């Protein structure tokens, strides 16, 4: 449905009195690998949520492929969402189901209810084979029939990635996927997601606290601060001044800490 390209034109988002995004314009092309960086509360999550219609712009327009996301009929919104895999920091798996069931639930976006029931109850051999191949790609093929809550945190993260890939998406949105794992595993996971998206030609947008990881693995960084884009370019262009502009503490916070 989306070819994998997104355009934000002068988009603002508000939650009550708080502005989450202010007049943001951004274009992401098919197959681009983009890291969203910036301090917490800058609007990275909101920006990602706009792209699959989970958050709505107050003003401005979000286009996925050629189409206005806000104007989609429910069935079109479903097929847009089916083409976008999302990986969250808190994984959002069903802990007391098997790995296979969680991965196969990635196919629900293209299935009717009874087909979904069948895939959970008695999955087709071919579907299980696909799930197994994806788990193999993320390195936990032998866990296919284990219960998710018996796996380690790092393994569960691989399951979440496999579920997103099972959607056969054009795009992967990853919202702070490594914020709650140890540094070595964080590096592995970011690299894995980047490599998978590159080899399959998927568009990848990943929000990251860790600027070092973003610089190491992504050709394009988009820096957000207070709901505005303050940087958009290659890692090498993010010099000392621009870095300070992105991450300096706001005046109010400084005085609050000081008292």
């Amino acid at each position, binding site marked *: 449905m989306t070819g994998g390209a997104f355009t934000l034109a002068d988009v603002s988002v508000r939650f009550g009195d708080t502005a989450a995004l202010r007049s943001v314009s951004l274009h992401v092309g098919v197959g681009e690998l983009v890291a969203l960086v910036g301090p917490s509360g800058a609007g990275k999550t909101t920006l990602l949520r706009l792209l699959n219609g989970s958050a709505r712009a107050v003003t401005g327009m979000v286009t996925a492929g050629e189409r206005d996301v806000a104007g989609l009929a429910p069935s079109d919104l479903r097929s*847009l969402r*089916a083409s976008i895999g*999302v990986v969250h920091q808190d*994984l959002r798996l069903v802990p007391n189901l098997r790995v296979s069931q969680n991965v196969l639930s*990635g196919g629900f976006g293209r299935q009717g*209810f009874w087909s*979904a*029931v069948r895939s959970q109850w008695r999955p087709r051999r071919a579907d299980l084979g696909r799930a197994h191949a994806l788990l193999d790609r993320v390195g936990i093929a032998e866990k296919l029939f284990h219960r998710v809550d018996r796996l380690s945190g790092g393994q569960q993260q691989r399951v979440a990635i496999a579920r*997103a890939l099972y959607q056969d998406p054009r795009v992967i949105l990853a919202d702070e996927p490594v914020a709650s794992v140890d540094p070595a595993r964080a590096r592995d996971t970011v690299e894995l997601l980047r490599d998978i998206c590159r080899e399959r030609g998927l568009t990848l947008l990943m929000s990251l606290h860790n600027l070092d990881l973003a610089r190491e693995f992504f050709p394009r960084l988009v820096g957000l601060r207070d709901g505005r884009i303050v940087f958009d370019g290659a890692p090498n262009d993010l010099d000392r001044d621009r870095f300070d502009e992105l991450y300096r503490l706001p005046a109010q916070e400084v005085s609050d800490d000081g008292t």
Partner: protein
Amino acid sequence: MTAPDRAAMVRGPGPVGARLVVLLLLLTAGVWSAVTLDLDLRGLWPGRDGWQLAADFFGRALTPALSHEGVDIPPGAPPLLVSALHAAMRTVIFAAAAMLPSVVLGLLLGFGGSTAWWASARARGRRGSVSAGARLRSTAGPAISSVCRLVSALLRSVHELLWAVLFLAAFGITPLAALVAIALPYAGTLAKVFAEMIDEAPRPAAGALREAGATPAAVFCFGLLPGALPDMTAYTLYRFECALRSAAVLGFFGFPTLGYHIAASFENLYYGEVWTYLYVLVILVVAVDWWSGQVRRRLVT
């Protein structure tokens, strides 16, 4: 944060918190109820006959009867332990037969009464362009949910003993009367608790499936329900345990469960037999409790 704000935060609520007031009110209400009932603690002290009966009855607790205590046992009557086992089996059958329809009805009313079931429809209804079906669900949803809650409240506000009296008057002592008498209030209780468990189940997985384009029914069944299922199963097994007691008590009306034999033996002053039947009931309840624990452990870990 300004200085007055901070001062207010540090000071906290006033000296007499709302919680303390409520506690005192509840205590007062309790004492007042006791006074209104004109409770006389001396009434708890039995007379001489009462002491004798209590002594006779509890004296047999450690020596339950192993064979019939009566002198003129009708020929062909089964031995006591066989009849106790038979009654126990009857009790289990009554309870199980009553649980089946009450679980089905409880699930239907529980799904319908949970807000989570309708939440996705409402979320879509707020958006501009929606299908007619989604709009109907978003407007009819709250109404259907209220009806489900009302029906389940009506069902459980009448105790199974009252239902039994009603159905006995209508049908006589038939197994169906006992079965329906247990099934109706149990369906109401199951529906209420199922609805609450579904609404309190963790939501993140459901959100992820919705975000991946799953239909609302698939989101509910595979994103939300698995999180509630261990608790729902354990609660159903606990209600099965309650149903065993209810089925036993319905024996007092003449259904051939443990209660029937307990009442008969008690009337004949065969206290040893009463204890035999009581111990069988206790074993049943403990067995179900153990089973429930096993099932829950398998579902949760």
